[in-house]
């Protein structure tokens, strides 16, 4: 039975599997080309995402990367493609990537909210003064 037939019988008939299979090819040429193709594909999709989205969730990224999504090292992918919080790149569904800046930002907001709660009994002028002090910090 040929490899193609085996794949067909196991329902592995998507295009991605066929391309990944070439990584196991004896030909050095095919191996280099497949690696280059996958890398170029990641970069092309990242550029497209950056051009068309201010913010994007992990699930939406999955839509762009297709089956290749599960093979990507996302920590590396984010660094390589300059996806950071300053580019408004957000992950809303999973916490698999550590966005240190996001966490830091959350802490500042949390602290500010707690301080505002503390001053709820104060007059408006006092509140404004305290709030301005908080944001000066």
């Amino acid at each position, binding site marked *: 039975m040929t490899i193609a037939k085996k794949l067909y019988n196991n329902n592995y008939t998507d295009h991605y599997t066929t391309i990944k299979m070439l990584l196991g090819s004896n030909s050095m*040429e*095919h191996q*280099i*080309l*497949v690696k*280059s*193709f996958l*890398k*170029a594909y990641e970069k*092309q999709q990242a550029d497209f995402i950056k051009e068309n989205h201010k913010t994007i969730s992990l699930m939406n990224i999955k839509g762009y990367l297709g089956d290749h999504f599960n093979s990507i090292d996302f920590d590396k992918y984010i660094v390589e493609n300059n996806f950071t919080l300053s580019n408004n790149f957000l992950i809303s569904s999973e916490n698999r990537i550590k966005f240190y800046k996001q966490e830091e930002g959350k802490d500042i907001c949390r602290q500010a909210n707690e301080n505002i709660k503390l001053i709820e009994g104060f007059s408006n002028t006092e509140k404004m003064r305290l709030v301005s002090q908080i944001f000066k910090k």
Partner: protein
Amino acid sequence: MDAINQSKIKMGLLKDLNNAINKGENYFDYLEKLLQIYSSEELQKGVKPATATSYLLVLLIAQNYKEAINKCKYYTVNIKSLKSKL
């Protein structure tokens, strides 16, 4: 250009292409040269599965999907004509 030289040039271009993609540099010059090589190989030797696969992958990297689809049709026609001769 003899076959050994062409093969050496091709491997050099492939490695340069891979490096350029990894570093995020412009790689279209390498792609163009590789496409020329594969095109001439195909003309010289006819449709071979290994060359056809590489040719298609280079077209996909170049995002030349229209040409890649045309090539696929061309290869299918070739396979059919070969089968009919058997």
